[in-house]
């Protein structure tokens, strides 16, 4: 049993920080917008991390910041039952962890719910060629963290640092231009009308509002890519035993990769990319049958797995029988699934998108608003953290040299640092997905050869691991 999750009782967070009377929301009464240095739309991992980063940096801590989040994040998180895990988990790479440490968010995480892993095993569903990542040291490849654990940690950090004007729950209902008066011309300042009636003008507007980013639409920045015609099935699982050393397992099936990532104790989180039809079938199964399908996905041949998806029930017996007739090494496998957490099976559509640019005048995009990546390398959230680290750096440089943080002259450095790096990662994940969806014999042979070769080549493997770790 994992230690009981400790949700510290909290004051309601995200209340607006007290500010001098003359600055308070005169906008709502006069109709004139309230001015902010940075307005961040979206309080997901990217947006919160950006605000916490700006607050904790001495050269940007005086900036006037606002957060707009559609969901109510002013309520303390609901306490979680022991052994119960959110199905939205992410693997944080060491470089994301280092950034969170630097801004002071790492210590705010509920560490009893964070699981580092030091080993990784990846293999081919058709040929079973495998690559095993065992680092020379015990330093983690990544840390499994529930997204809510991370956002709660960032929220408490922001609360303790103070100074972020939070509008939550509030939606952006309109984005337009600021007023022009005899003294000032705010026509280049994005001006937001909120569902609460407030109006805010931003020196710099941040779109951290996820894949469907309204801020990106306002800026008219095209985002290109494609849908994979696949969905990611997620679930929180309890396995028959705790694995030691903690290992991430991933197998490339022709329908997409299936990954089982370790959580504390015998718990694990599943991300299974598959076709929408198969996802629907999986979601309709009982917990036992679903668990049997997960076991099968790592152990049985493609033909068996295909067959299991034609059955509407009875997978438990079917898998037990077929396992006896399949050659695999149980020692290389994740422990078998013992239980599926109630209500944790869900599915998300998978797509690849990349915005043409991340900036325009007085506007910058971070996280999923800028790019959506196939989850097979567990990079989505990490790319967002790297964006945030770069943008905070660029803003801080501009502040200490008297720059206008909303000007494209300042922001172009952010694009220069992140666009190419993100594009490379998006490309690698996309190519991997395509390579492993192929069933064409020669290609399967080649990729297996490739995987075996990489497994034998220490330096290449080291390189791949460093890439995966975001180092």
């Amino acid at each position, binding site marked *: 049993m994992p230690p009981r999750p400790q949700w510290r009782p909290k004051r309601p967070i995200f209340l607006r920080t007290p500010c001098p009377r003359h600055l308070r929301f005169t906008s709502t009464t*006069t109709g004139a917008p*309230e*001015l902010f*240095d940075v307005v961040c739309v979206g309080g997901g991992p990217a947006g919160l991390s950006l605000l916490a980063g700006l607050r904790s940096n001495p050269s940007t801590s*005086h900036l*006037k910041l606002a957060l707009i989040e559609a969901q109510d994040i002013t309520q303390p998180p609901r306490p979680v039952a022991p052994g119960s895990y959110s199905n939205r988990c992410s693997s944080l790479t060491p470089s994301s962890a280092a950034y969170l440490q630097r801004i002071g968010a790492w210590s705010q995480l509920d560490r009893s719910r964070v699981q580092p892993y030091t080993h990784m095993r990846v293999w081919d569903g058709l040929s079973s060629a495998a690559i095993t990542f065992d680092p020379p040291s015990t330093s983690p490849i990544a840390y499994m963290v529930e997204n809510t654990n991370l956002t709660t940690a960032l929220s408490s950090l922001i609360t303790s640092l103070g100074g972020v004007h939070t509008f939550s729950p509030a939606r952006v209902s309109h984005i337009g231009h600021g007023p022009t008066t005899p003294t*000032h011309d*705010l026509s280049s300042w994005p001006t937001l009308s909120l569902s609460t009636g407030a109006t805010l003008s931003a020196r710099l507007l941040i779109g951290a509002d996820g894949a469907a980013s309204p801020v990106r639409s306002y800026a008219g920045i095209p985002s290109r890519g494609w849908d994979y015609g696949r969905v990611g099935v997620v679930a929180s699982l309890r396995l028959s035993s705790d694995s030691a050393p903690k290992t991430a397992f991933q197998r490339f099936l022709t329908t997409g990769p299936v990954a089982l990532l370790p959580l504390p104790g015998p718990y694990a989180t599943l991300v299974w990319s598959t076709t929408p039809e198969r996802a629907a079938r999986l979601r309709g199964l009982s917990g036992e049958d679903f668990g049997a399908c997960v076991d099968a996905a790592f152990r049985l041949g493609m033909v068996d797995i295909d067959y299991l998806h034609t059955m509407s029930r009875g997978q438990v017996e079917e898998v037990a029988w077929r396992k006896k007739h399949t050659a695999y090494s149980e020692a290389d496998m994740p422990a078998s699934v013992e239980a599926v957490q109630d209500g944790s099976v869900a599915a998300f559509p998978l797509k690849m998108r990349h915005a043409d640019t991340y900036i325009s005048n007085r506007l910058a995009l971070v996280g999923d608003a800028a790019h959506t990546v196939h989850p097979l390398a567990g990079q989505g959230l990490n790319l967002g953290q790297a964006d945030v680290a770069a943008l905070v750096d660029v803003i801080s440089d*501009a502040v200490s040299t008297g720059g206008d943080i909303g000007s494209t002259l300042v922001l172009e450095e952010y694009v220069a640092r992140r666009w190419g790096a993100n594009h490379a990662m998006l490309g690698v994940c996309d190519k991997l997905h395509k390579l492993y969806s192929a069933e064409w014999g020669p290609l399967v042979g080649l990729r297996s050869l490739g995987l075996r070769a990489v497994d034998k080549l220490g330096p290449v493997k080291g390189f791949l691991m460093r890439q995966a770790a975001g180092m």
Partner: protein
Amino acid sequence: MLSRALRRPRRLLHSSPSPRHNPSQPPQSTIDATEVSHFAALASTWWDPHGSSRLLHLMNPLRVRWLNECLAESHPHLFNTTSHNTSSTTSPTTPSTSASPSPSASPSASGSIGAESRPSEGNAEGNTKGLKVLDIGCGAGIFTESAARLPHITHVTGLDATPAVLTAALAHARLDPTLTPSRLTYLSGGIETHPIPPGGYDIVSVFEVLEHVSRPASFLEAVERMVKPGGWVVGSTIARTWTSWVITKVVAEEVLGVVPRGTHEWGKEKGGKPTRFWNVLRLMRLWWGWGACPYAERVALSFDAGVRSTGVEAPR
């Protein structure tokens, strides 16, 4: 500890408590009429980040960093971490007292950026009065605006001989509500007729100006009179070397076309007597190869110089 300037064998740039020129004689202008009309033509594109002033925009952070380095030596308390919390902005409700053409008591925008966290002024000792800057040859305000946003600077006066660029400067300052007249003022005219405020300026900046004035030596004498004892003259000019001639004149103007023709009058850089100024360089730096810019900008060369006035020991 002796100030660095006092340890120099030659101290040429003094601030003089008594003006050396005879006030009864009208001061001779160092403004070059052809330069004025040339910069008037540039005014509209000055703030275009991809226009002909892109080089200046990209060099500007280096300039400000340079100014900060100079100030860190003379006013170390300004750069204690605590002083970072000082807001770089001011409340727009601050009464306007300046010669700005658009003075207004309170802008319509109700909030005040950064002001909410503005701690009581002078939370870092010595910060109470703040520093005053005169930016000579301010153009459309690239350095001027950024200096005015710095937390440790209370007021910047931008001075330029070309009225058209000042119109561009004022129009651009309107885009940032923190740049109120109480922080930033633009004045048209030359240095010779500019009144010296009581005590002088803490910082006088002359960035990329020297190569454009007709008599650099008398220009520099006028600059000296503006600065407070213990204050700084910071500036930069194109290096007077053949490399810099090739790069700025031939490469920038002719080959790459990044700067319109005639922007750099080579005779002025070579001739005149700027030697006097450069002999007292506190530190001379050669910048090249800054990262974020494409090919054309990578080759530009410029000297940045800071001269500490030595009339009096620096306030400690």
